């Protein structure tokens, strides 16, 4: 969390101090109430995961005897691990390839800019504006014809390309922020380009590369348009698995909650850790 905050004016008198205290109390209550209301559905889902199916649909209460039976059921009966593995493979696979392709590109744009660099960057941004639903039909047909439907490889390809513009942009803003003097000094000391990249650039920009990678993992993990349309069972990641709970037959709220909690927990934690850098990536550097 940032440490920047508003400085409050020095209280002028006791009554001034009192009203400042009252204001502070109101803001504390308000801030926490809003936060808890917004977070409530997630909190309730986590709680419901520890209930029995009967308790899950009973009147809302905080008092119940927690059980792990839903977690057990999700693991044993629905093969949760397979879907989780698909999510991990697809999210990390696509991130790996996106970084591999984007790092040289962003490096060139930041350190060896030409007249066309700006135009290229903006064009990349504009490919991100292409609505996925507009190209659903051709991608589906291509995937059908080359046998990529319902494969991890297919999803990895789509997600790599889907996230590539964001990854290039974010890396570019990080590389751009790097002090040029350090590279210059290294060059003066006789460092070759390779040495420059491996001993100066990579260590210095590792935090930036890491947070770019995390953003890409988060976006791929939560992507639900392509995963719902391009996979059925073999390569279905967690987004598609959770969607299978939408069938109207029977209510399995506790199992839905247990599966959902497991599906979102890792990303929620990653998101909390990288929220500041995410702003950079999500707004293409327009808000820092």
């Amino acid at each position, binding site marked *: *969390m940032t440490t920047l905050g508003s400085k*409050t004016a020095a209280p002028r008198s006791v009554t001034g101090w009192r009203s400042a205290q009252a204001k502070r109390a109101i803001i504390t209550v308000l801030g926490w109430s809003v*936060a808890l209301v917004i977070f409530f559905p997630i909190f309730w889902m986590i709680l419901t995961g520890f209930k029995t199916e009967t308790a899950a649909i009973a009147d809302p209460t905080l008092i119940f005897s927690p059980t792990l039976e839903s977690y057990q059921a999700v693991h044993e009966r629905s093969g949760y691990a397979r879907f989780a593995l698909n999510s991990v493979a697809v999210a990390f696979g696509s991130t790996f390839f996106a970084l591999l392709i984007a790092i040289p590109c962003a490096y060139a744009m930041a350190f060896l800019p030409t007249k066309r660099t700006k135009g290229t960057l903006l064009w990349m941004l504009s490919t991100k504006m292409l609505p996925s639903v507009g190209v659903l039909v051709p991608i589906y047909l291509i995937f059908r014809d080359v046998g990529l439907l319902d494969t991890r490889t297919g999803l990895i390809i789509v997600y790599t390309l889907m996230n590539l513009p964001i990854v290039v942009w974010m890396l570019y803003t990080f590389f751009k922020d790097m002090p040029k003097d350090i590279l210059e000094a290294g060059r003066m000391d006789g460092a070759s380009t390779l040495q420059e990249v491996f001993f100066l650039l990579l260590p210095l920009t590792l935090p930036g590369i890491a947070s770019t990678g995390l953003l890409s993992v988060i976006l791929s993990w939560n992507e639900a348009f392509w995963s719902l349309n391009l996979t059925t069972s073999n390569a279905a990641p967690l987004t598609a698995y959770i969607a299978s709970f939408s069938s109207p037959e029977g209510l399995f709220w506790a199992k839905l909650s247990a599966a959902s909690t497991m599906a979102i927990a890792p990303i929620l934690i990653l998101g909390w850790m990288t929220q500041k850098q995410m702003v950079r990536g999500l*707004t293409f550097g327009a808000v820092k």
Partner: protein
Amino acid sequence: MNKTRASGRTVGGLRTLALQAPAVTLLLLWMIVPLGMTLWFSFQYYNLLMPDMTGFAGVENYEYLLTDPALWAAMGNTLLLVGWVLAITVVGGTLLAVLFQQEFAGRGIARVLAISPFFVMPTVSALVWKNMMMHPSNGVLSWLFESVGLPALDWFSALPLTSIVIIVAWQWLPFALLILLTAMQSLDEDQVEAARMDGAGPIAIFFFITLPHLRRAISVVIMIEMIFLLTIFAEIFVTTSGGPGLATTNLAYLIYIRALLDFDVGTASAGGVIAIILANIVAIFLVRMVAKNLED
């Protein structure tokens, strides 16, 4: 050293080109190929259920689509969905950013809780809301309504589009908050202090200092949200499947129905072209703004 510097321009240019080539080529393919195919299909007779009927259709697919009441219903729903979610998230996000900018005990944790919904995958948020929150007999909202003497509401049949708006707004409010809170960090505290010394109240400060400061960030939020909201799909897919009737069918869902349920590739592609045109109108403004930012 100096020699390479002198000729560095062309050498650098070549190297730049080579390093950018993979990314640029792949993105170019990713854009041109499907785009070209969508355009091509949109002028063809192409229905997977009627393999005999092929060939150039002229603008027939567009005609068929544009005279289909479902398209106009879907356009209306898309506009309502985007409009309402934008209104809620931008106004709410701005107010919350101001609130979470104030110092209070546990502010860090409260902020983290408030931005959390943004990291929840769409299928999970939609199903948690549909079942545990909005279920007519067992949902938390029904229980709340009944405990204050109101009749329980069957959200998805009585107010289907409103229900979708609530779910989507819940996901995107944290996004607006996150971006605007970041933008707040660069607000000049001295300016606020000076205004306060001159006797400006908190409301005046909000309207004359905070809001103008956030203007740019707010427009970024509006445009990025618009691009994503125009093609909301998963939330509708797992809750209402576009129904009842066409009540929650937006453009994205209509294209999905035409393409993967009706197998009418031609009409679906025409719909795709319309979606691309709509998104591009928004995109032009966003790209312009980012371009301006790139110059500073």
